[in-house]
């Protein structure tokens, strides 16, 4: 009976213990507790937003964590990062380290490696980290806009101040406009209001009437039945007719010159024929001379 009980208890203890140990071992293995870690040291002038356990990212993937933060004897913060075995390959001698402070979310250390073929970073080397601050970047971007808004607000404030001020520009303009419209309502014409003298307005009116008469006369002289412009038009028509005739005459001249050119060609041909005839006659004379000898001792060659 006791043996049976012992067996049951033993079985229970062994199975549950194995389950617990296996779970913890699997968890530890998954968390990389058994993998070898490499440590690298970085430096920074400030420890702000840096904390132990902070993730170290490469290409957005977590490759390690910040292990320890401490100040050296010169007051510079030394940051020890721990990177497990397979991930230390991403940290090379030309790697750069930056502390990224996003606008929203927690800060992180980012490793950037441009040349993966460069040698590994030796553990004794201390590299300085650069700080990328989203908040400051955003403030920098927003600053000009804020300055402009500030200017606009100042202008609006000035305008509203001006509006509120009874002696301000706007109120003065309004008062002037009021005076102007009041004056305009009192005067008969704008000229009278501008000059302030009714006589001047009358003289301007008379001058305008005279200008109008002159314009009517000029119009008659220019566009009337016997005016200048119809006469010019008639002359131009005559010139066009004459030019057409002249054009025909010029065509004839061109034709005649072309014929003359052809005739000179015929002359050349005629001369060539005459030359040929003269040559033939000379040859004939020579032959006749041979046949009818004029010489004392003719010599006839037999074929």
């Amino acid at each position, binding site marked *: 009976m006791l043996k049976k*009980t012992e067996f*049951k208890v033993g079985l229970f203890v062994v199975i*549950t213990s194995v*389950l617990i140990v296996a779970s913890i071992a699997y968890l530890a293995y998954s968390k990389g507790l058994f993998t070898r870690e490499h440590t690298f040291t970085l430096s920074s002038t400030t420890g702000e937003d840096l904390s132990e356990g902070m993730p170290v990212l490469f290409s957005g993937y977590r490759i390690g964590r910040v292990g320890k933060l401490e100040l050296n004897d010169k007051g510079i913060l030394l940051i020890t990062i721990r990177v497990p075995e397979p991930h230390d390959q991403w940290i090379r001698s030309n790697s750069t380290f930056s502390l990224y402070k996003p606008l929203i979310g927690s800060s992180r250390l980012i490793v950037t490696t441009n040349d993966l073929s460069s040698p590994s970073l030796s553990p004794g080397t201390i590299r300085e980290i650069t700080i990328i601050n989203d908040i400051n970047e955003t403030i920098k971007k927003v600053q000009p806009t804020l300055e402009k808004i500030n200017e606009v607000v100042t202008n609006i404030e000035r305008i509203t101040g001006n509006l509120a001020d009874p002696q301000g520009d706007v109120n003065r303009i309004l008062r002037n406009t009021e005076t102007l419209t009041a004056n305009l309502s009192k005067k008969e014409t704008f000229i009278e209001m501008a000059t302030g003298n009714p006589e001047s307005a009358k003289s301007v009116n008379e001058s305008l009437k005279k200008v109008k008469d002159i314009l009517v006369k000029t119009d008659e002289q220019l566009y009337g039945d016997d005016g200048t412009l119809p006469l010019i038009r008639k002359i131009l028509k005559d010139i066009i007719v004459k030019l057409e005739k002249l054009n025909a005459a010029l065509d004839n001249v061109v034709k005649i010159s072309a014929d003359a050119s052809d005739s000179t060609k015929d002359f050349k041909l005629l001369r060539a024929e005459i030359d040929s005839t003269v040559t033939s006659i000379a040859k004939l004379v020579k032959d006749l001379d041979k046949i009818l000898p004029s010489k004392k001792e003719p010599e006839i060659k037999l074929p």
Partner: protein
Amino acid sequence: MTEFIEKIGKASMNATATFRDILFFAFTILARIFQKKTYNSAMKMVLVNQIYFTSVQILPLFTVLSIILGSLLIGIVLQIIKNLGLAEYLGRILMGLVVTEISPFVTVLLVALRSSSAMNAEIAVMKVNKELRTLDTYNIDVIDYLFVPRIINGVVSVLLLSALFSILALTSGMIFSKLIFGMSFDVYTNVLLKSADIYDIDIYLIKCCIFGFFITLIPIRSGLSASDDLTSIPIAVLQGMVKVFIAIIFIEVLSLILISL
């Protein structure tokens, strides 16, 4: 008025005395646990029997209860997570709530209800029947023979049963996450692993050990406080169980404070 203040003072003094008494008893037991001579054959036999009565006998009932309670709990938690749109915290909630908090708490309640009360009554009866004095007469150390095996049994049982509860609850959680979220088993395992922290597991194991230690120690001490009168047995059991539940709440709160630190 004076009487009322006197009552408060008396109650406070009694509470302090009880707390001091339990702590003193706890140190005595702890000292014996780490002594090699405590582990004799008689003690080992009692220990095996105690584990059998507390853990193995309860196992079928505990397994069924774990599956039902775990499934119910995980189902409710997952449904709430889904309704509140907190799916990304699934792993953290399951590990933090179910594994670290609920499973030790449920286990310790079950063990306390079944075994602690039994131990309390057993020791009180032995005290009334003068069995403890008889053992002492035969030079049998009651601490080694009776108390240490029961308290070690409490620690081992709560630790193992709680782990079993966690495993069963998380397994049923796997099925529920598949049904509610359509989450594959691989994804579920990865979510849990990502959320699990060795520190949480340490706290969980320590908490289970402390729970197991005190839910057996307090009933034993309470049983010892019974007089020679038979009517003192139910009083001792009642007082012992009340102290056990206060201790459970106290340890739970203390562990929560420790985790939040």
